[in-house]
């Protein structure tokens, strides 16, 4: 199929190479060379970038949905017969522990097998993007696993064995609760306190209290509060205005993640989506943003890199597309800024949740 020409003559030098990006994600979903070894434990997040990327490109037809769905379900950590591992349930990032492939329960007891909060989050997203109805997800087990990860201060570990704890995993937790339509998975109030505590003197959010403000953590903070439905409860109008200012100052051409740091494609989404959630993305400069993102496009292999003349990777390829989607690139689907999936996938989530509510005949449980 011939490459599609840009429809904007004024951007003729930097046209968007849709087909290259489709092929980039297709290749990502197949085989990666050994130098990508460091991605082993996070393979499910890579699937998410590729699937959601293809969804944004409206190209999900190039993959075999059922194959993907089965593989994702094989990563679910299910309860054992006696449910002794309930607090370790969720989704794994990959098969690296060596559990034999299985898409159904009961779970296998293994001394080191447990879910990872970011994998549970991207696993659920990926299933939803593929149109799955989550009927094979053990929701109660996922939520039990999630509860086990929250600390006293409101933040979350990634895994029950312990890990670093910070605002990223609050976002994962909020997304999981949102998708499962069940907030019993977390103590919202404590999470809000941690988020508020992460607000820096300069009005961005750091990874935790006292830490330097950063575009990624600011996204996690604001998107979490939006998913919880607590944005205006947690932050005053004045605070919101100040956060808007911090975010909008990140634009230099594309967006940077911190003051006085270079711009990087992924922040076109992290900061752009935050600005969208705060209703001021419309006041950014779309032209300069677009020009920068496209300057990081790899014209040969497809995908996007963090900087021009750098190697593309799945994360930047996906977030570059999302950044373009936010500014209304015509061939791209709209992205839900808080949940970071297409609006199409989001509608599927909503419909699914309606059927859940209809079948139980009760309102979703709020904490």
């Amino acid at each position, binding site marked *: 199929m011939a490459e599609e020409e840009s429809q904007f003559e004024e951007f003729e030098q930097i046209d968007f190479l849709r087909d290259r990006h489709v092929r980039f994600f297709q290749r990502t979903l197949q085989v990666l060379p050994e130098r990508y070894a460091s991605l082993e434990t996070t393979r499910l997040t890579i699937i998410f970038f590729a699937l959601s990327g293809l969804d944004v490109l409206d190209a999900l037809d190039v993959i075999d949905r059922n194959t993907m769905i089965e*593989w994702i379900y094989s990563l679910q950590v299910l309860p054992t017969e006696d449910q002794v591992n309930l607090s370790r349930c969720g989704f794994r990032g*990959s098969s*690296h522990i060596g559990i034999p492939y299985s898409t159904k329960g009961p779970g296998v007891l293994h001394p*080191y097998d447990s879910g990872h909060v970011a994998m549970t989050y991207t696993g659920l997203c990926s299933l939803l993007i593929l149109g799955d109805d989550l009927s094979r997800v053990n929701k109660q087990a996922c939520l039990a696993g999630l509860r086990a990860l929250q600390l006293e201060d409101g933040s979350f570990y990634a895994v029950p064995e312990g890990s*670093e704890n910070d605002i990223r995993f609050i976002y994962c937790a909020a997304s999981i609760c949102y998708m499962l339509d069940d907030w019993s998975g977390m103590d919202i109030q404590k999470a809000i306190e941690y988020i508020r505590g992460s607000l820096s003197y300069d009005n961005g959010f750091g990874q*935790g209290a006292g830490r330097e403000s950063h575009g990624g953590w600011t996204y996690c903070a604001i998107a979490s509060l939006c998913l919880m439905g607590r944005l205006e409860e947690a932050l005053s109008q004045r605070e919101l205005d*100040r956060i808007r200012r911090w975010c909008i100052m990140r634009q230099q051409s594309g967006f940077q993640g911190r003051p006085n740091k270079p711009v990087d494609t992924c922040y076109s989404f992290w900061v752009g989506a935050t600005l*969208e959630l705060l209703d001021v993305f419309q006041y950014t*400069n779309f032209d300069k943003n677009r020009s920068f993102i496209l300057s990081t496009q790899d014209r040969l292999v497809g995908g996007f890199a963090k900087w021009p003349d750098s190697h593309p990777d799945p994360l930047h390829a996906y977030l570059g597309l999302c950044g373009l989607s936010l500014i209304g690139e015509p061939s791209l689907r709209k992205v839900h800024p808080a949940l970071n999936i297409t609006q199409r996938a989001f509608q599927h989530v909503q419909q699914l949740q309606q059927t859940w509510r209809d079948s139980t005949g009760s309102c979703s449980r709020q904490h």
Partner: protein
Amino acid sequence: QDTTFLSQEIPPVFLCFRDRKEWADLEPVPQDDGPNPVVKIAYSEKFSDVYDYFRALLKNDERSERAFALTSEAIELNAANYTVWHYRRVLLQALSKDLREEMRYITAIIEEQPKNYQVWHHRRMVVEWLNDPSEELEFIADILSQDAKNYHAWQHRQWVIQEYKLWDDELDFVENLLEEDVRNNSAWNQRHFVISHTSGFSDAMEREIQYCLYQIKKAPNNESAWNYLKGILQPLGLSAQPGLLERVLELKQTHCSPYLLAFLFDCYEDALENSKENVAEEEQQKTLKKALEICQLLAQEDTIRKEYWLFLGRSLKNKHGSSDPSDEPLADDPEPSVPVSEQQEMS
């Protein structure tokens, strides 16, 4: 005794674990991705061999020296595998390994891979077990000398300082970094961190304002310095600090920047928000006029944010403007101050 370099005729090569007799009792466990693997990483034979044996050890939860040695091999191949690090920590404790030696080990790994989450977390655990932070500040300083904005390094530094109360020399450390690069936003953040946890900002306020203005004169287009200045004044109100507005207006003549202009706008806005009842309407409108002029100036000087500055001006005018119809209209239609759209609020 592991006979890795067992050979007779040929030069020493890496011997697969599956060929080492000391490992013969263990059945290697391959990765099982099922019939249709997705995002499959094509591992070499050596890589698979190490990890097949890692998986075997894990399954049995073996606690042995050979297991500990294998984790080093596994880490060398993939230092981002958090399960390997966790298992290594289990072994460190089960085998009562020398934690000082582990500190040397993790130091070397972080030097090679300073942007990996797992290695910093591992170091924190070892420091906690030893209850000895004595090497930390120097080590982190060394990492920062290679990348002065490494987020992991700063996070670890803040943890060590706060946990072990190592505040004494940190302000000096920050000042040195700011001497090297006054635009280092991480260093400015650390400055705020130190002062807020030690002296606090009340007595230090004048000194800190001086420090900011001094740095701004040296490098006017430095967002970090302006963010810091605004940040320390914000809790009390920008218009509450006597004489500050005048000092900034003076600076505007010689050291102007979008950050200075935005600061002025914020001062005026703060004055409008917090004006006392006895401030005359006329005074208010004068302040508003100055603020709106700044917005126009910003729309010209900071063009990438032109729409935002105009939006701010409109919002301010709608909030504080008089009902005088002779007021000059700003570019674009008036808009109410923006509440977060209900569409964005999810329930």
